[in-house]
């Protein structure tokens, strides 16, 4: 019992034995924990069941010789050794890197250019912004089918347009030398829309007072873009870079519906290679190993970008 004078504004509390109070608190906490788990349980089950477990399962699979229908056997790192030797996998990696090296910079530059063009007060600006974004909403499968029709070598619109211009008909997706570049273009048609929307949002954050003062100091458009707009957009650009690299390295659906990795393997990318190994040639363990090579590559890209960002945020203060 305390000897302090009791505040008259507080109701006299029933003297609860501390053990009981602790029990009550524990009970309350237990109830709260149970409620909390009740709320997040379904999401946890879904994430564990559809995310974590398959990832671990496929890691184990990549150390086995397994065709998914008969009991497999443990082979350790043999799948990875075979991958290093496999010319088919090398081609797939080369194709994926080529696709990424073209798609990522082009989608960022195109997205920024369009966002700058759409970031002004015009009549019907909402309509233009919508039109740019619509292709992003179209599913990759639908895009693939649509462009297959347009680019059909014999009966497509594209060749008849070229014919009008007096250019000889092209093979397009059935030409091994053109197919991968066309797939980059088709992906850009939809991928740029996403970059535009993100950049448009980011452009709202460019401080107008800085732009104004730069103008008063006599800076032209190019200088303002270089010294004010682009630095402000840097964090967004890094995010988009990471996002688009991940998207590009994982491209599959578009290729599945347009070329099936052909003609002559010229558009076989890593994910398509994985699919082929698992479901066409029944070497699922080998496919899982290829998938893990890709996963490690994605992690390295993500980690590298984080390191770059950290360095920048440390030096930014000094520069300014």
């Amino acid at each position: 019992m305390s000897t302090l004078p009791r505040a008259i504004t507080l109701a006299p509390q029933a003297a609860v034995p501390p053990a009981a109070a602790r029990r009550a608190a524990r009970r309350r906490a237990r109830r709260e924990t149970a409620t909390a788990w009740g709320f997040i349980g379904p999401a946890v089950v879904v994430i564990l069941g559809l995310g974590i477990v398959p990832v671990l399962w496929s890691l184990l699979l990549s150390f086995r010789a397994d065709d998914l229908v008969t009991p497999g056997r443990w082979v350790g790192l043999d799948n990875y050794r075979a991958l290093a030797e496999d010319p088919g996998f090398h081609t797939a990696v080369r194709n994926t890197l080529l696709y990424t090296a073209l798609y990522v910079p082009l989608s960022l530059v195109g997205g920024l250019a369009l966002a700058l063009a759409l970031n002004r007060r015009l009549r019907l600006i909402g309509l233009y912004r919508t039109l740019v974004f619509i292709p992003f909403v179209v599913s990759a499968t639908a895009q693939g089918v649509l462009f297959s029709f347009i680019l059909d070598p014999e009966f497509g619109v594209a060749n008849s347009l070229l014919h009008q211009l007096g250019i000889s008909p092209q093979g397009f997706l059935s030409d091994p030398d053109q197919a991968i570049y066309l797939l980059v273009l088709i992906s850009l048609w939809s991928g740029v829309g996403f970059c535009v929307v993100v950049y448009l949002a980011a452009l709202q954050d460019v401080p107008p007072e800085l732009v104004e003062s730069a103008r008063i100091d006599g800076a032209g458009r190019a200088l303002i873009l270089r010294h004010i707009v682009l630095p402000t957009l840097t964090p967004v650009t890094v995010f988009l870079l990471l996002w688009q690299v991940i998207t590009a390295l994982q491209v599959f659906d578009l290729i599945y519906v347009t070329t099936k990795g052909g003609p002559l393997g010229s558009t076989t990318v890593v994910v398509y290679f994985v699919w082929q190994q698992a479901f066409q040639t029944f070497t699922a363990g080998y496919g899982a190993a290829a998938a893990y090579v890709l996963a490690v590559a994605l992690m390295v890209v993500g980690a590298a970008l984080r390191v770059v960002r950290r360095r920048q945020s440390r030096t930014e203060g000094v520069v300014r």
Partner: protein
Amino acid sequence: MTSSIARRRLLAGAAAAPFLAACGGGASDGVGSDGTVTVELWHGQSDTGRKAVEALVAEFNRTHPRIRVDSAGGGVLSDAMLQKVTAALASGSYPDIAYIFGSDLASIARSPRVVDLTSALHAGPTPWRSLWAPVREGVTVNGRVRAAPALLDSLAVVYNRKLFRQAGVDFPRAGWTWDEFADTARRLTAPGRGVFGTGWPGTGDEDTVWRLWPMIWDLGGDVVAADGKHIGFADQGVRALETLARLSRDKSVYVDPKPSGEQMYQVFMAGRMAMVGTGPWQLPDIIGAGVDYDVVPLPTYSGRPVTISGPDTWTVFDNGSARSRAAVEFVRWMMRPAQDARWDLSAGSLPLSSATADRPEWRLHSRRTRGLDVFTEALGSARVRPVHAAYPQISQALGEAIVSVLLGKDSPAGALRRCAQRSDAALLIPR
């Protein structure tokens, strides 16, 4: 208070319901409380084929009160069935019956879950000997019957008579050669009007490959050599590819860039292709498009008729003895001449057995459908692809060789040399 408890129970029950339902699918032996056995069927058919299967399933369920075949499951088309079934087998929750392509049977039949139907079909209601030889070979792996035949086809050439008349070229006749075929294709090609002599699927998948086997067999080659270590078409393949190279040089072949070869048939049905190699399943669409067509057997090099048949299968999986017994009963019922004839009429399949071919409804249908008898007669000279575990890799390698020749990227000899290297490597893998 009571109401909140009741609500909580209700919620818990609702949350658990899907899990319970999911457990009810695979783990149980499928026998309901009233003694009926539920059998899950993945038929993979679309449009007319789906209607036909569902009508047959409904009749089976009516006449077999102890068995209920559920044909709603799967949600997958036959082109993707192999992937879907593989994933289902890996997860341990698989159907009782699935529609598996003949060329995929060897890969699937490695699974211990695939029911051995040897005794069930040898002693079945449809005499084993009455089935066509390609049917019997197409469901046999290592001497055991691993599936029930579901659909039978054969390859022949369908040609557009109107285009032949316009070009003033005689209709092709049985016994023609591949050289005559290439000549005819060249003469019927009219680039100005967008008309092609013939077409070939150009993605390098099985549809690209299986059309070449009759040419190779005709020249005396085989898929795998007698020693089992090498391909059996090293020289014959070059000669067959030379025919394709000639079509490609003449620009008389439409190389279909799209997966599934649908585009090639669209071109034919639009009256812009003179000849197309296809099976009886395409006839309903060709008739529907109003093409003035007729059918002629495949050309040969030797003059001896030969074609390829790709029988598809109902493969039965083991989900406990009650369910497999019911599944076997269903596939045996489907093979009976009465059911087989109904299925053939709607799905464009050929009769599985001579008993079906003798049924009056099939005879009438065959008389009414121009050219159908050519496909049926071709069954006498039809061979099937070997049910071999390395076949997918050989097919992939040959597919690339065919496409590179069709696109003029490689010489027949060079293309086949690379195909042989890859295929022989695949044949070395112990299986």
